[in-house]
């Protein structure tokens, strides 16, 4: 069901109307929980494959350096998975605790995807434990094969969650008759129109975030003068993965942008702050969208760019915010604009970085020698996380005011429960101490010499 065919509705949920004066706190709590969870998802998507690649190098060459790296990384993987398990559980709770009317009304439409996710996650948890605790306890080649299910289930699990997000943006698989959801077709909801590009975009983001962060840790040691095989291998493998993914990600991002143009023209207009529908639509870098005039002020104007981004045609008409009533537009337009611009700027920068690395490697067959390359490599990890979060802010805040695009509003989905501010600040305190403790312990783990990864000890 394409939104064009379906008039925007104001569906009242099955639990009746929602009255919540603190809607913003519910949204902030959900956003914060996702912000802490999503970088861990990146590791879940891509880290197992990188660890297995490293172990494969060890099996092929017999070089203990690779083994030490793979084993060390697998412990990090387990720790991050554990944190991901619990932060992911909180998300499941929050769906019900914060948006009970959404769950009560649509749980039976999109729930199937979570059913698949549950199993994938389950099997991932099982094999990650067997893999990490199985070092030196099961034969070498069997050990590698025990890691394969982690890679597969990591893909299937996150895919299922993404498909639900795709469904919220491009809802289908049900009919609305007299304000009631009927004729539910769960498989149709599962394979919605946003499924493929969201999947590809998040996958490459996963490889970029993990690759740049892990590679960056060793690039830091390299910069400080440690040129051991351990540091070189620990840097080159993840960094290469991330550098290869970066240029491709820009192409996928372009594809995603055009899909948004087709299905959610108002979201696209929000990316730019395009007040009026117009042809030859420009793009404004930085600046400030002024709600009263519907114009972007104090910005660097790049003519035709929005038409090019949206339609690959500099003169194409682009739908503006004025094409829908104000109540149907996202509130914080500038938040979306800045998030979008942060994402594309960082993404473009990382693409250039990746291309430079590939160029030097291809022409000279060695690593770049300039110190600046390694300095950028160190900050590329944090930058890629910023781009990741900015990307999610772009799509999620850009979807507002809808929880189910043009079907149900967030203010009709929210809980009537009180105390949301308290929950927010308790959660904030927990998440901050959690992040501090995890980072501190990862530092501690990294400080141990590689020699402790000898056979027989799994700390």
């Amino acid at each position, binding site marked *: 069901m394409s939104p064009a065919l379906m008039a925007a509705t104001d569906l009242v949920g099955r639990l009746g109307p929602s009255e919540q004066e603190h809607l913003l706190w519910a949204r902030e709590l959900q956003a914060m929980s996702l912000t802490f969870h999503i970088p861990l998802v990146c590791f879940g998507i891509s880290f197992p494959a990188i660890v297995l690649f490293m172990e494969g190098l060890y099996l092929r060459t017999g070089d203990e350096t690779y083994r030490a790296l793979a084993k060390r990384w697998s412990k990090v993987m387990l720790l991050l998975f554990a944190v991901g398990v619990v932060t992911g559980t*909180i998300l499941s709770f929050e*769906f019900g605790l914060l948006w009970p009317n959404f769950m009560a009304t649509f749980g039976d439409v999109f*729930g199937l995807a979570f059913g698949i996710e549950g199993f994938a996650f389950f099997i991932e948890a099982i094999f990650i434990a067997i893999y990490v605790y199985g070092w030196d306890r099961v034969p070498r080649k069997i050990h590698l094969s025990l890691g394969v299910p982690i890679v597969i289930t990591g893909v299937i699990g996150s895919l299922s969650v993404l498909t639900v997000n795709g469904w919220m943006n491009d809802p289908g698989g049900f009919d609305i008759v007299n304000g009631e959801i*009927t004729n539910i077709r769960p498989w149709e909801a599962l394979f919605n129109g946003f499924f493929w590009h969201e999947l590809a975009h998040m996958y490459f983001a996963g490889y970029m975030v993990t690759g740049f962060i892990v590679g960056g840790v060793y690039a830091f040691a390299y910069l400080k003068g440690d040129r051991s095989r351990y540091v070189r291998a620990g840097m080159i493998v993840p960094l290469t993965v991330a550098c290869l993914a970066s240029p491709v990600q820009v192409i996928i991002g372009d594809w995603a942008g055009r899909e948004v143009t087709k299905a959610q023209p108002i979201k696209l207009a929000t990316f730019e702050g395009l007040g009026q529908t117009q042809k030859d639509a420009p793009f404004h870098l930085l600046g400030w969208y002024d709600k009263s005039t519907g114009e972007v002020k104090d910005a660097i104007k790049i003519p035709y760019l929005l038409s090019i981004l949206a339609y690959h045609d500099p003169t194409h008409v682009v739908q503006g915010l004025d094409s829908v009533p104000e109540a149907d537009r996202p509130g914080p337009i500038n938040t979306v604009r800045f998030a979008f611009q942060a994402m594309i700027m960082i993404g473009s920068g990382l693409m250039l970085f990746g291309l430079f690395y590939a160029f030097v490697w291809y022409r000279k067959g060695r690593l770049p020698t300039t110190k600046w390359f390694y300095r950028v490599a160190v900050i590329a990890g944090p930058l890629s996380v910023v781009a990741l979060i900015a990307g999610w802010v772009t799509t999620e805040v850009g979807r507002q005011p809808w929880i189910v695009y043009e079907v149900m509003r967030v203010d009709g989905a929210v809980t009537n429960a*009180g105390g949301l501010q308290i929950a927010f600040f308790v959660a904030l305190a927990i998440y901050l101490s959690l992040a501090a403790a995890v980072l501190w312990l990862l530092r501690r783990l990294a400080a141990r010499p590689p020699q402790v990864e000898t056979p027989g000890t799994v700390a």
Partner: protein
Amino acid sequence: MAEIMLGLALLALTAYAVLAGADLGAGFWDLTAGGDQRGGRVRGLIQRSMSPVWEANHVWLIFLLVVLWTAFPIFFGSIMSTLYVPLFLAAFGIILRGTAFALRGQAATIREARGFGAVFALSSVLVPFCFGAAIGGIVSGRVPVCNALGDPYDYWLNPTSILIGVLAVVTGTYLSATYLGGDAQRAGLPDLVEAFRRRALSGAIAVGVISLGGLAVLHSDARSLYDGLTSGGGLVFVAISGGLGLTTLGLIVSRHFIVARWSAAAAVASIVVGWGVAQSPYLLPGELTLDDAAAPHATLVALTIAIGVGLCFLVPSLALLYRFVLTGRLDQEFEPLDQRFRPLTADDHPPEAGA
């Protein structure tokens, strides 16, 4: 179809209770193990036994949530919004428990291990109490079909809720002591076998006493559940559970921990099923029946297919994990928790700590 889904939900709840519930119970023993030196051995065994399995055990909860919101969305929306206080507390407890436990495994000094251990242990008590209290609110008929109506405290701070909350905590401790006793036996640690035998016995007796006394609470506060549990099918399962509980007690006394874990788990499973039977046909007593709450047929069919296919992969994977675990294939060397840090205990402030 709706009955199949309810069966799966009860299966997931049972699995969570007997597996993750035992991990949470282990937190209680960790909390009460005593000082660093005295409790080092108990904590070492807990760390060693739980490490490979606690994540997989925890996932049953996610499975339960997914089945509930997909197959019974109105029920899910009503309980999550009404019981938001205990469920928020449980959610926060889950984050704290899981990460503190994982981080303790990586701790480098006894001081760190102590800090993470305290968080792990305290939240391990909080989580089952909150879940039990939430269930108490449901079974005593206090949750209507609604979006968070009314007083948020009576729903979970009532006699039935407190009874079931305490029972959930105590049952977890009894299960975990039984499992840990078995692990200690396999690892050849006779002092720990005895330590957990004592704990299992006291836990078993506490469960029995609280359950019997609890009947009086149910009689006055949750009459329909009381009637369901003391007649017909409900009574049969209660009797089975009681019989299995006594059997377990005998097995623990005679140190047959390996069999005792199965009978202890079966006793819990049978009381969960008994609850389902006693409350039938209602999901929310007096408010919402199973059939009224169930999702449309197409969803139930799709979910059944997904779960059927999923189980084909899950069951062999779980079998592999527990075979590895129960045959000691993944066993790490046993090490009392305080011993691990021996070289560092002289100085609990290593140079990099403040950086």
